[in-house]
């Protein structure tokens, strides 16, 4: 199994979600994150300037079977892209094992439902 983590624009979330569903990713988990980088947008708080330009992004993550990976990445790259700086990143890593809490099933079976294939 592969874990995909993508840092995307919040405004792109709906598109990304749909694109992923379309290629068979059933469940994604996400939360708000912020990013801070070199290019800074000046901020001002009560007369004090501070130049961390934290930008708001959304972290989405899902674990999927190897065979879904390529199409998921493709879907992600297409749906999350605007072409402007700040579109974000996708990182893929290895998951050694997974469990479905409800049933205790492990391995690949933890991420898809038997009979639904």
């Amino acid at each position, binding site marked *: 199994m592969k874990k995909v983590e993508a840092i995307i*624009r919040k*405004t792109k979330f*709906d598109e990304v979600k749909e694109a992923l569903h379309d290629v068979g990713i059933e469940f994604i988990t996400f939360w708000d994150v912020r990013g801070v980088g070199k290019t800074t*947008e*000046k*901020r*001002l*708080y009560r007369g004090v300037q501070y130049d961390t*330009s934290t930008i*708001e992004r959304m972290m989405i993550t899902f674990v999927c079977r190897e065979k879904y990976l390529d199409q998921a990445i493709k879907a992600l790259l297409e749906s999350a892209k605007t072409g402007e700086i700040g579109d974000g990143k996708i990182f893929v890593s290895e998951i050694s094992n997974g469990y479905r809490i409800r049933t205790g099933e492990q391995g690949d079976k933890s991420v898809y439902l038997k009979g639904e294939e």
Partner: protein
Amino acid sequence: MEEIIFSINTLWVLIASALVFFMQAGFALVEAGLTRSKNTANILMKNLMDYVIGSIVFWAIGFGIMFGTKNGFWGGLDLFTQHTYRTDMPDMAFLIFQTVFAATAATIVSGAMAERTKFKAYLVYSAVISLVIYPISGHWAWGGGWLSQMTIPFHDFAGSTVVHSVGGWCALVGAIILGPRIGKYGKDGKAKAIPGHSLSLATLGVFILWIGWFGFNPGSQLAASGTTNATAISLIFMTTNIAGAGGALSALLYMWIKYKKPPLSMTLNGALAGLVAVTAGCDAVSPGGALIIGLMAGILVVLSVEFFDKVVKIDDPVGAISVHGICGSFGTLMVGFFSTSQGALYGHGFGLLGSQVIGVLSVAAWAIAASLILFTILKYTTGLRVTQREEEEGLDIYEHGESAYN
């Protein structure tokens, strides 16, 4: 005795002014609550600044235009309000009451134009509405202008049309010229929901607006001394309250039946719709009439929000056009039916209704025309809309350099 009457009137008008002032906080919270957190500082700032600017320019120029006696169309100039206007209360009391009213008309617009309007353009707009757009139509109805000189005078007691619909129509024009927020309509043109960031703020805002209305409507009596006035303001309290209740109730029930679930956000709009609708006739209808007006407004606002959102595809994040423009006009027309002394339903014929139609239409025409010119000028000078990047990342950072939540 004269002195006492003077005192009591002053007291009442000042207290009502404080309550109406508080509506600014209500509007700020409703609008902030129903929009996204990345634009919260911006929307709060707009609500603060339209009051600030309105307070100054209405005093400087607007008041004279509204209450001067030049002619039926406008009142003329009275720079910094030096003339004398009232004998039953200090001019300052009258002025402050009118100032908070003017600011209400101005503040309505920010909601409909939220999340994408340039701050600079908003400030200019906000000055112009308090300076001239609102005062002119206010003069027509309340300042001795032509609407009040018709055979059957136009009846808009506390401003369903004069205040709310003016704000609503300007909001309509603004929202059209601006266009919808990015992401509001899908590629297939279908409306998408962009939920506001805090219904707690929005709900508190509605409660604050509601209490503010207890200054807005009964305060418009502009007097409290004597049995007649005391009885009038008591009735107005009652009709105002019942109409708000009616609006909330019918919006809730209608949504419940239609979508199986009653959402808070729309019920809040329903309450406001009822309050706006009864504002024109709060002195003239019975509590029963107020209830019916409120009930109708609650459903109307839902239909109207859906109409603008889904059919004509005008993106109004907080429903200001529907609440203030549509329900304000609707409520004004209803006076023609429900006025106990002049209304059609009480057997007094359709004379008043005719005047109401004229009033509603002429004010709408003026507000739409004036704001169309204004927003068009703004579009080609300061620019009306922020860049795509600013809109996506949030106006707070790009326009104000700070974020509301940390």
